[in-house]
């Protein structure tokens, strides 16, 4: 897989998994995840061309276009505050 294909695959995979967690909006969760864990060039790559993205992943990209720092949807994207103790990493 080249980088572009890999990134599209990753976005679709994230979207698909969030899609099974019915208590959260899959597109919003996918956007939140990409915002918090992807390097700018990875984001720019999928922003540049929506080809191959699933509908949920494409919706997530659209959300990110509107707001590069969307609201957090899971505890995995809620990190410790500067002086906060006891939470942990999200890989």
């Amino acid at each position: 897989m080249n980088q572009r294909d890999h990134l599209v695959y990753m976005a679709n995979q994230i979207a698909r998994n969030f899609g099974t967690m019915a208590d959260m909006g899959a597109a919003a969760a996918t956007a939140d995840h990409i915002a918090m864990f992807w390097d700018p060039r990875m984001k720019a790559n999928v922003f540049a061309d929506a080809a191959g993205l699933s509908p949920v992943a494409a919706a997530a990209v659209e959300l990110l276009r509107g707001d590069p720092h969307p609201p957090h949807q899971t505890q995995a994207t809620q990190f410790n505050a500067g002086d906060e103790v006891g939470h942990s990493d999200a890989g």
Partner: protein
Amino acid sequence: MGYEPQADFGTPASDAADSITLTIDGRETTVPAGTTVMRAAAELGNNIPKLCATDSLKQFGSCRLCLVEIDGRRGTPASCTTPVEPGMVVRTQTPALHKLRKGVMELYISDHPLDCLTCPANGDCELQDQAGAVGLREVRYGYEGENHLDSAKDLSNPYFDFDPSKCIACSRCIRACDEVQGSFALTMDGRGFESKISAGTAADDFLSSECVSCGACVQACPTSTLQERKVVEIGTPDRSVVTTCAYCGVGCTFRAEMRGEQLVRMVPWKDGKANRGHSCVKGRFAWGYANHQERILNPMIRESIDQPWREVSWDEAFAHAASEIRRIQAKYGKESVGGITSSRCTNEETFLVQKLIRAGFRNNNVDTCARVCHSPTGYGLKTTFGTSAGTQDFDSVMQSDVILIIGANPTDGHPVFASRMKRRLRQGAKLIVIDPRRTDIVRSPHIEAAHHLPLRPGTNVAVLTAMAHVIVTEGLADEAFVRDRCDWDEYAHWAEFVAQSRNSPEALEPVTTVDPADLRDAARLYATGGNGAIYYGLGVTEHSQGSSTVMAIANLAMATGNVGREGVGVNPLRGQNNVQGACDMGSFPHELSGYRHVSDAAARALFEADWGVAIDPEPGLRIPNMLDAAVEGTFKALYVQGEDILQSDPNTKHVSAGLAAMECVIVHDLFLNETANYAHVFLPGSTFLEKDGTFTNAERRIQPVRKVMTPLNGLADWEVTQGLANALGLDWNYSHPSEIMDEIARLTPSFAGVSFERLDALGSIQWPANEAAPDGTPVMHIDGFVRGKGKFVVTDYIPTDEKTGPRFPLLLTTGRILSHYNVGAQTRRTDNVVWHPEDLLEMHPADAEDRGLKDGDWTWLASRAGETTLRVQVTDRVAPGVVYTTFHHPATQANVITTDYSDWATNCPEYKVTAVQVTASNGPSDWQESYDERSRRSRRIEAEAAE
């Protein structure tokens, strides 16, 4: 400090709450009920002579040396088997006892070589000490009679010898193997005079036996019968330093016993809180790599990877590396470079590497090998519990009633903890194993799993959801716990999901291949069997749904109330010694130490104020993304400390393409590893024996690593990183790792109470350690989850996209073996290769027969990613349709086979599921041949400089 043997109180400590007062040799003492007279006396400083007793083993009462007199009792009872009683009056030294002991000792010595002066244990021998203690001055029986003095030595084990001529048949070795290690490899063969220690095999030697070479028998032996080769070769130690093992995530504490600057032996430290005095073959014996001839001690550079290496000074190496980093950043942008921290290095070194990337490279392109092992643990546990680390300390397992192991092979991967676990299982705890392979712990001496669920690789989520289905639909959930500790609405939603008929064990059987009735019984046992503890490893995380599986595990634990007290919990068994620490130290590209996201301005401000530089607010690249970007042309330089990504990361061809596309690869390691084949700068590393620092083990325990010898390369790893940082224009002037820890504590709230001084005082600290918990936190989530309520997450099973089919009909899963560690860079350079000289492919007899393969045949193993050759081991340990291999040997390069598929949330590679085909082979693959040639050429060092 001089050499002192570890204190031995003769019998184990009692943990009884009640105490008893008695009088020993005229002194009144109070001890816990259940304490033996021997131990009570020893704690007073009255060491009763003994031979068969040692405080790591249950009392035995065979040597008859520890006799005492007790008022009101007839005869002379053995103090090791006599528990204290209220008001008891004991005499440990009387003329009558003296005579008795001397007579007993005389009999022992009458069949023991009198070669003390040339014996390797001279001066470090309990028999010798006790002969002196009882005043034995002559042996009246002579040596003409029948004896054992000519018994042949067993020299089969590469690390220790067995000399039966010196054996006193005390059974300490047998009991250590049984009680401490749990292997039951040794036995007493024969009776009376014919009694002898036997390994119980046809060859009757240790190497061919069930012995796992943990060293427990050697440590227990009171004579020189079981003796380390290094003691024979070097002599007895004259000083010792307590430090922490650098192998797996158990984090065993050892005494490095030294003679001058030479390491004589590594002896597990009885006071070590992770290992409680036990060890495995790696930590105990496999440290010879530290002095291996292939270790590189001088910095080297080269213009291109086709050239031979050229040795240079440290200054030249640093200057060259720094100029290359700056050149590349000027040409391709500041985000075109990055680095990888090492989970084998100390917290302090790891912290410095990520600081170098953020403050020196001025980006967040830093990642760590946790990416390829336990990153889904971070994501899954953070989502559900609010914090990612394991919930328990290792001691907790002794309070467990049901132990559920999923995707872990602790007897191979975490052997010292596995021994503790096996001890609890022998006491009666029930065992559930969920694993495609029949791992050793499924059935071992005196242990048999109540349930082994041999699932099809890739179906963890389906199995766990099916277990949840049983728990919910049969009313086995602990609703009181859930209402108190979790979000009830989320639970109700999750319960509704798992209760759907499509999630029943029967409905999912076609996917999981697990017998539904067995799965139901396993779920019932976990839910209702008392304290239920889940232990898991990379068989959980290294899947496309690794994070979902971790969340499914957390769901199960919360639903059954198995969180927040001793004996329960969710316990990731970390692979490398400092995986937890590397994560804590800010090794991930999106977060600073203490798990604060780089986009948080307030968090960044703390570091910016301390470091005097602005920190990039955007996440950096993860390892696989770095390699993708390198192939794509936007990532050009990499600093890799203590990590061999070419051998350890998936899809080797892709990794090699990424590395080959870079213009500067800086490898900082002990050896010219496989990644170094693509490197332009080589910075020699130091071993854990050569530096100070800390490791954090799987139970969040921060432990000291202490320098026991001078670095052979001249610099500890933290000094090398500092040299590179200063060449890049940073002004670092740490003079000792304790100063780095002070900075970590200053900037990381969960480490606020940690310092070298505190660690020296306490021995170790389990984070979080702060004002609220100054001595650390052994068990987490006792009164509530970190972030309020525990969260249930729906984990629907999504099959991996790695599919079997006509071309690739089998599923390959990979793992490690006891004698080797990760890519084997260390253990392959020790005598551990005796046990595992090559990677083998395990295959079920039916699959082997279909392919005309027999045990030992060379096979061609191919996937969509690549192909290799290795020999087959035919075994029903794996199910039909599943094959298994290890990845310890670069000649095999198992990761040529594995693919780019990864966990959806974290990019942790899906090592555990690869569709493959296996056929007979008559030679190495093209890749192996070309790689071997490239590797050989790449390791050349210019002759004139090397001389």
